[in-house]
C-alpha cells in the first residue's frame, strides 16, 4: 500500500493533544504506548492528569493478586513519572486500605497536586494520612469511604473549590471547620452522613448537594448559592428531633439564598422545611429561582403543601416545576382543611413564567387536586402539564380526569397530558 511510505500520522501532533488523547485512555493503555517507537517512549510519562480506574486492572479470581498488581503498577508508574501532576484520580473496587496508598499520597503532596479523587473498595475504610492535609494547592478533593482526621494545626485548604465527601467518617466539628476554612469553596457535596447537625458557612459557595440523615441544616452564610439539592433521610431519633424543634427550618435553610436558581428536594426535605413554618410568606423573594423539583411531597400534610406554595409564590420567575407526590398516604388525617384554598392569597399569585409542570405519583387527594387547580388558574403562559397517576391509584383515575377537565385554565396554550404508564 502506498500508505507505507507516508509519514507518521500522529506523533507530529502537539504535545497537548497527545496528552489529551493519552488522558482519555485507560492508564494501562497509555503506558503501553511506550513501546510503540522511540518518540513514544516517554510521552506517557508527562501526563499531568492521572486517572486510574478498574479498566486498567486485570481481572483475576484472586482478589489479592489483583490488588497486588494494581499496587505494583501505580507505584512503578509514579516512580517513572516525569513532570508535574495536576490531577490524580484513583477509583478501584479492588483496592483496600494499604500503606502503599499512604506513600502515593505523600508523593503527590510533594508534587503540588491540585485535584485528588480517591474511591476505594467496599471493605475496611481507608484512613487518610495527614499528608493529604498538607496538599496546599488542592482545588478539588473527592473522597469516598474513608476516615478523615484533620490534624490540630490544620488551617484549611486555601485553594479548595470543590469538596465532595461521600461515606466519610469525620468528627462533626471538623467538618464544619473544614468547610468554613476553605474560603474559595464553590461546590460542596456531602453524602451519607449520619445524624449530622450541619451549619454551612461558605461565602463563595454556589452548589450544594447534601444527602444523608441530617438532624439539622442551617445555611448561615451562603449568599451566592445557586443550586441546592438535598435528600434527607429519616430515622426515629431524627423524627423525634423534628417534633421537638422550635426553629423555623424554612428560614434557617432558605432564608439566605437570594440568588438561588435551582432547588431540588428529595424524600423528607419538604417535611423538614415544613417544621416550624408558620407563615405563608417567606422572608425573601427568589428572583432567580427558575427550576423547582420536589419529591415525596405529602399532600396529606397541609404544612408541606404550604411549603410548596410558599416557594412557588415567592419565585416570580419560576419556569419549570416538578412535584412528585408521596404515595404513603397515612391513615385518615381527618378532613383536610380545604377552606384554605378558598381564601385568596394577599399577594398576587400569578406565575408569569411558569411553562412546564410535571406531576408524578399523583394520588388524587383533595389537596393535590386543589393544588393542580391553583396552578392552572395562575399560570398564564403554561404550555405543558403532565400528570402521572400513582401506581396505587386504580379506581380514582376517572374521577381525577373528570376533575381535571373541569378546571379553568389561565393559559390558552396549556396542554394537559395524562400519562397512564409510569415513565
Amino acid at each position, binding site marked *: 500500500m502506498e*500508505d*507505507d511510505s*507516508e*509519514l*507518521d*500520522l*500522529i*506523533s*507530529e*501532533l*502537539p504535545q*497537548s*493533544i497527545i496528552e*489529551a*488523547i*493519552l488522558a*482519555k*485512555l*485507560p492508564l*494501562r*493503555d497509555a*503506558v*503501553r*504506548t*511506550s*513501546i*510503540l*517507537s*522511540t*518518540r*513514544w*517512549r516517554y510521552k506517557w510519562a508527562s501526563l499531568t492528569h492521572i486517572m486510574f480506574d478498574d479498566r*486498567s*486492572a*486485570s481481572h*483475576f479470581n484472586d482478589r489479592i*493478586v*489483583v490488588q*497486588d*498488581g*494494581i499496587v*505494583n*503498577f501505580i507505584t*512503578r*508508574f509514579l516512580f*517513572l513519572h516525569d513532570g508535574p501532576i495536576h490531577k490524580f484520580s484513583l477509583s478501584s473496587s479492588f483496592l483496600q486500605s494499604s500503606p502503599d496508598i499512604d506513600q502515593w499520597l505523600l508523593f503527590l503532596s510533594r508534587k503540588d497536586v491540585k485535584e485528588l479523587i480517591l474511591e476505594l473498595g467496599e471493605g475496611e475504610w481507608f484512613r487518610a494520612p495527614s499528608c493529604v492535609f498538607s496538599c496546599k494547592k488542592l482545588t478539588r478533593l473527592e473522597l469516598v469511604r474513608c476516615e478523615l482526621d484533620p490534624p490540630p494545626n490544620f488551617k484549611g485548604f486555601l485553594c479548595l473549590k470543590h469538596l465532595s465527601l461521600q461515606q466519610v467518617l469525620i468528627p462533626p466539628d471538623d467538618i464544619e471547620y473544614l468547610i468554613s476554612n476553605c474560603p474559595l469553596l464553590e461546590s460542596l457535596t456531602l453524602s451519607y452522613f449520619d445524624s449530622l447537625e450541619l451549619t454551612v458557612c461558605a461565602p463563595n459557595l454556589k452548589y450544594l448537594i447534601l444527602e444523608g440523615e441530617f438532624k439539622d441544616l442551617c445555611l448561615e452564610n451562603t449568599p451566592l448559592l445557586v443550586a441546592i439539592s438535598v435528600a434527607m433521610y429519616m430515622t426515629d431519633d431524627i423524627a423525634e428531633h423534628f417534633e421537638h424543634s422550635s426553629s423555623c427550618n424554612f428560614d434557617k435553610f432558605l432564608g439566605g439564598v437570594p440568588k438561588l436558581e435551582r432547588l431540588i428536594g428529595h424524600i423528607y426535605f419538604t417535611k423538614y422545611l415544613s417544621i416550624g413554618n408558620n407563615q405563608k410568606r417567606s422572608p425573601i423573594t427568589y428572583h432567580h429561582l427558575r427550576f423547582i423539583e420536589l419529591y415525596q411531597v405529602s399532600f396529606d400534610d397541609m404544612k408541606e403543601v404550604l411549603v410548596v406554595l410558599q416557594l412557588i409564590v415567592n419565585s416570580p420567575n419560576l419556569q419549570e416545576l416538578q412535584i412528585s407526590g408521596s404515595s404513603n398516604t397515612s391513615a385518615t388525617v381527618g378532613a383536610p382543611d380545604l377552606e384554605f384554598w378558598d381564601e385568596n392569597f394577599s399577594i398576587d399569585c400569578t406565575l408569569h413564567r411558569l411553562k412546564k409542570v410535571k406531576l408524578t405519583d399523583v394520588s388524587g387527594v383533595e389537596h393535590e387536586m386543589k393544588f393542580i387547580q391553583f396552578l392552572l388558574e395562575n399560570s398564564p403562559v403554561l404550555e405543558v402539564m403532565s400528570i402521572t397517576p400513582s401506581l396505587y391509584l386504580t379506581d380514582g383515575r376517572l374521577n381525577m380526569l373528570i376533575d381535571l377537565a373541569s378546571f379553568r385554565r389561565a393559559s390558552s396554550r396549556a396542554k394537559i397530558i395524562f400519562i397512564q404508564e409510569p415513565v
Partner: protein
Amino acid sequence: MALKGKVRTKALVAPSSTMTEADSEIIKPEMLKAYVWLQTSDDSIQQVEQEVAMFCPFICHEIHSGMGSSKNYPISLPSRVNPPMLSLILDYCRFHQVQGRSNKERKSFDEKFVRIDTKRLCELTSAADSLQLKPLVDLTSRALARVIEGKSPEEIREIFHLPDDLTEEEKLEPIKNTMDDPRIRLLNRLYARKRKELKEREKLKIVDVEEEHADERSVDDLLSYINGGNEDSKGTRGSKSKKKNRKRKDHHRTAPSNCTSTSNSTSSSSRNAVDIDKKESNDRESLYSSPRHHGNLIRDLCNGTKLLDIEDDRFGPEDDFDDCDLDDDIDPALKEEIDREVEDFARRLNSDWPERMQEILSLGQERRPLQLTTNGNGSLRRFTSLDQRQK
C-alpha cells in the same frame, strides 16, 4: 422589517419544500447574512457565513481585529487547515452553532461526525487545535483514544505508520504494566535472562581487555628489570651478590690465576673487565662445572649488566649457590622470562665482545692484553663456537 423580508423570501423560494432556514439563506445570500473570507493553506479563498465561522475562536479573534470582511483581506488560516479539513470543520460549526438543538441531537451528530478514517481524524484534530476549537479537539481526541484503546502495539504502529525503531534492548525492558499475570511474569523472566546474557558478553569483553593490560604490565616489569631500571628488587640482590663477590675476590686474590683469560672473558663478558685476572679462575671453574652453570652463567651475566660495577666480578660455585639462594625470591615463571631475555641480551653482547674488550683493556695493564691475546684465540674460538652455536 428584516424579519418580513425573510418570510417573503421563504415563500418565494418553495414553501412546500422541507428546507431549513439555513438552506434558504444560503441559496439567497442577501444582506441578511454576513460573510467572511477565509484563506486556506493552498491560498484558495472561500466565503463563509459569519455566524458559522465565528464558532471558531481563532476566526472570531481575527474578525474582531478587522480581518476577513472582504475578498482582498481574507483571514489566513493556520497551515494545518487545508480545504477538506476546513469544510469538515465548517460542517461541525454549522451544526453546533444553532441554538435550539437538544443534547441528544448534538451527541448523535458528533458520533457520526467522527466516523472517518484515522488519517483524516488526525488531520482534523490538528486543524481544530490550530483554530482553537476546543469542543472539536475533545471530540476527535476521544475518538483517537478509542482507536488506540485495547490494541496491540503492532496494530497501533500499523494504523499510525509509526516506525518500529526501538532497539531490542529497549524492548527487553520489563513490561511496566505487569499485573502479575503468570504469562507476563514468565516473559519478564525470559527477558531478564536474555539481558543477563547480553551483560555477561559485555563483561567478558572488558575482562579480556583487562587481562591484556595485566600482561603488558608484567612485560613492562620484565623489561625494566632487564634494563636495570628496577632498583628495588634486583638491586638488593645485586648488592648482596656484590658483597659475596667481594669476599670471594679477597679469597681468590691469593689463588694463582690458573684459569685462562678465556674463561674470564666468557663469564665476565658483560661485566667490568678490569678485574679479569681475579675472575679467571672463577670463570674457568664456572665453565667447567655442572650443568647448573649454564643458568648460573646467565645469572652472572645478568648481574654483570651493570658494566660500571667493578665489584660484581666474582664468580664461583659458592657464589652461584648464593646467587641461587637469592634468586629463589623470583617467581619461577618470571625467572624463565628473565632467563630468556638475558640470554638474548648476552648474545648481543657476546657478538661485540672482542671490540669492547680491546677498548677496556687498553685502559688497563699490559699483562692482561697479553694474556688475552694468548688466550684470546682460544677464547675467541670458544666464542665463535658459541656464537656459531647460538647463531
